C-alpha cells in the first residue's frame, strides 16, 4: 500500500515537472529562435537541428515552424528562397529591424526575470 502511494507521488512529481519544463521551454522558444537568427540568416531545418543540439531548448520539430511563420507575419523576420540540393527550395530567415528590436526587448526582459528569480532565492527567509 505504502509503496503504491510512493510510486503515485513519484509519477505525479515527474509528470508535473515535465509539464512545467515544456511550458517554460515553449515560452522561451521564440527568444531562442530570434537569438539564433540574430546571429545570421538560417533556414528552417537548420534552426530546428541547432535547437535540438541544446537539450534544454530542444523543441518538437512541429512547434518551430508555426512560430517562424508568426514571426514572419508580425514583420520580425524576412525570408528569401534559395535552391537546395536536398529537395525543394530553402526558406532563409533573417531578422528585420523590428525583429532586432523585439530580440533586444525580450533579451532584456529575460535577464530581468532571471535576476529577479536569483534575488528571490538569495533573500534570507
Amino acid at each position, binding site marked *: 500500500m505504502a509503496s503504491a502511494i510512493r510510486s503515485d507521488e513519484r509519477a505525479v512529481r515527474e509528470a508535473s515537472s515535465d509539464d512545467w519544463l515544456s*511550458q517554460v521551454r515553449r515560452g522561451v522558444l521564440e527568444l531562442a529562435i530570434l537569438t539564433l537568427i540574430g546571429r545570421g540568416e538560417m*533556414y*528552417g*531545418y537548420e534552426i*530546428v*537541428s541547432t535547437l535540438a543540439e541544446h537539450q534544454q531548448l530542444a523543441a*518538437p*520539430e*512541429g*512547434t518551430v*515552424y*508555426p*512560430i*517562424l*511563420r*508568426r514571426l514572419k*507575419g*508580425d*514583420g520580425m523576420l524576412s525570408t528569401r528562397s534559395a535552391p*537546395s*540540393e*536536398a*529537395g*525543394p*527550395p*530553402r*526558406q532563409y530567415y533573417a531578422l528585420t*529591424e*523590428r525583429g532586432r*528590436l523585439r530580440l533586444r526587448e525580450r533579451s532584456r526582459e529575460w535577464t530581468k526575470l532571471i535576476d529577479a528569480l536569483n534575488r528571490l532565492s538569495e533573500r534570507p527567509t
Partner: protein
Amino acid sequence: MMMTVVGEDRVSAYLDAVSDALRRVDPKARAEIIGELSNHIAESEAAGRSAHDVIDGLGDPADLAAMYERELRTPAQAGWKYIHVDSYFLRVGRWLAHSRRLRELQIMALLALPLLVIVGTIVSAGVGVVVFFAEMADRENSEALGLLAFAVGFVTLIVGSVLIARVWRSMTRLIRRASEGKAIQLTVIHAWPQPPRD
C-alpha cells in the same frame, strides 16, 4: 534524395492530411506551409533520418495544423466563427491586426488635431497682421505701410513654412518610431482577439 516509395507515399499522405487540416488557413499561406514542411522532411532525410522518424517528430497532422492556426491567429482560435464564412473578412481582419500602414494612419489621425491647431494659429496670425497693415496703409494712403504689410506677409509665410516643416518632420519621426517599437498600441489592434498563450 533517398526517399523510398513507401516513405514517399507516407510523406505525401502526411502532407495531404496537414493541408486538409489547414483548410481554414488562406490558400497561399497553406501552400507555403506545405512547402516548408516538405522541405523540412527532405532536409531531414538528406541528413540520414527516415521519413517515418521525421513525420513522427512533426506530430499528428491535426495537432500541427492547430499549432499553425494558433500562431497565425485564425478565427478558430480567436473565436470569431462568422469570419469562416468569407475569407475576405479574414484577410481584412488580419490586415487590421497587422498593418503597419494602418497603425501609422491611426497615429497620424491622433496627431492631426494638434497639427491643425498649430497650422491654423500660424495662418490666422499671419493673415491677421497682413490685413491689419494693409487696411492701415489703405486708410493712411501710405506706401510705406503697404510695403510693411507685404514684408510681414512674406516673413510670416517663411517662418510658418519652416515651423510647419519642423512639426511635420518631428511627427513623421515619432510615427516611424512608434510603429517600429510598438510604443503606441491602438484600439483596433486590441480589438482583434488574441489566441490563448498557453
